[in-house]
């Protein structure tokens, strides 16, 4: 199915990247959780009144009264969208396009392992590290909430939120991996992999500002992650997660098919 030697090698080559992102998210999640304070909620509400557009742009328009709502707004409106996305962009590029660009792919192909097996191994690394990152964030969120505000967090709603965000990042990972598979150089791979999701995020920011641009909010990949629907455990929220995951899988499949057939400049 996959090549264990390559799997180990890729994990060894990327665990530091994982640790950096896990560290950043650990820091932000802990800080944001400690910031939860009904009184501070008032302050943030004042911010929202003072500069509604600024706060709205980052998806922080609704100031939550409960801890989970607070986290959904301040973590899952920006930080948990952007940081795992950047991680996925970098890792997806590293796993395929970088090997092709540098020429080290020649060694990986000059061995009795099919391209299919190679690409399956790389998908395993990307998905595995992404799942671990979100899992880590989930645990950090629960532990931090319980140590600062014991019993205040709706844990099952928080887990649903994380499954949702994982679905979204699976879609982004699939697209980035697809970009990595079709590119001869890292410039194209990174340009597509980082460019398209960032473009979507900018559109989301415009949509969040409301007014005439409000419909844009629902026109991006990010609208497949609806934190309120997931917290309320509404079926529509799960459908969107399913669609996001399906988009991701579809891109993984197309990307690896193309990679298996195409000419490689080695």
């Amino acid at each position: 199915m996959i090549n264990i030697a390559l799997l180990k090698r890729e994990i060894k080559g990327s665990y530091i990247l994982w640790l950096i992102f896990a560290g950043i998210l650990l820091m932000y999640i802990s800080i944001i959780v400690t910031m939860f304070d009904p009184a501070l909620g008032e302050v943030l509400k004042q911010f929202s009144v003072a500069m509604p557009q600024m706060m709205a742009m980052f998806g922080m328009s609704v100031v939550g009264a409960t801890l989970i709502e607070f986290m959904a707004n301040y973590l899952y409106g920006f930080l948990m969208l952007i940081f795992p996305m950047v991680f996925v962009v970098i890792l997806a590029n590293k796993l395929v396009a970088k090997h092709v660009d540098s020429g080290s792919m020649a060694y990986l192909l000059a061995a009795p392992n099919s391209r299919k097996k190679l690409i399956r191994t790389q998908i395993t690394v990307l998905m595995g590290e992404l799942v671990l990152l979100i899992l880590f964030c989930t645990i950090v969120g629960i532990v931090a909430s319980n140590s600062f505000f014991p019993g205040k967090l709706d844990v099952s709603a928080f887990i649903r939120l994380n499954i949702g965000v994982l679905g979204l990042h699976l879609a982004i990972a699939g697209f980035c991996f697809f970009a990595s598979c079709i590119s001869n150089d890292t410039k194209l791979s990174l340009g597509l992999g980082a460019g398209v999701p960032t473009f979507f995020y900018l559109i989301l920011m415009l949509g969040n500002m409301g007014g005439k641009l409000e419909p844009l909010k629902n026109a991006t990949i990010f609208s497949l992650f609806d934190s309120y629907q997931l917290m309320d455990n509404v079926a529509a929220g799960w459908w969107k997660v399913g669609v996001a995951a399906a988009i991701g899988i579809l891109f993984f499949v197309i990307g690896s098919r193309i990679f298996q057939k195409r000419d490689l400049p080695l």
Partner: protein
Amino acid sequence: MDIIQIHELTKDYGDHKGIFDVSFSIKEGESFGFLGPNGAGKTTTIRHLMGFINADKGRCTIKGMDCKQEVQRIQQFLGYVPGEISLPEDMTGMEFIEFMAAYRGLKELTLAHRLIERFELNPKGKIKKMSKGMKQKVGIVTAFMHNPEVLILDEPTGGLDPLMQNRFIDLITEEKQQGKTILMSSHLFEEVERTCDRVGMIKQGELKAIDTIEQLKASQKRTYIVVFEDEAQAVAFAAEPLQIVAHEGNRVIVSVQQDMNLFIASLHRFSIKDLKAKEQTLEEVFLHYYSDIQ
């Protein structure tokens, strides 16, 4: 039995780049030298054999297996040195060798260690800090360590110093004695002369000629630079019935093919200060040899 077969292989990159209707085959135990100027299509041909790219037309097989469809089976008995060495920089040489062995499913590293010793490679250093020659040695170790039956070597001695080039030639000679089939692209006359049975010349994507190394050597011209005591002698010498390439001051450049005795007899009558043989590259030999055909 033909181990490597290439039949009307065509890959058109546009702008007259690529390879066009290249056909040749290499027998079991034969060593084939592949020559041509940069961009002539040597590496493109090798890329097809390695299954890296798809042909527009034609096909190539190794031991009867299609190079694209059955690449996984072929790679079990194939050793490959790429034209451009690009190893993962974050590993040490030994880490890379061990990784490649594990990746291939190779458990036995005895041969790898023997090759490391043979090429006096210190594999402990980070690849990032290695010289081109050192990296080339790492590449050679990973290409030979699984004792492959078929070897595809794209400019394998690039970056190696003359001592190591000699060791490489010894290695190839031994491999040949073991009955290995070899395809090697090269620029060095000595390397090809000492290792190859036949040589193919590719130019602008077309295979121009295939010849045995003996035929090639027979047609090789030797060029000598003769320095005379004074200019008058040089002028007199230039009038001899020899193939004079150039004449400048007291120096004359002569090209000698069959008339070696005549050349020596002529030299005898003059007062010579210096006599130098000018080395000819294999490409020069080829270009000269086939200049009439083109």
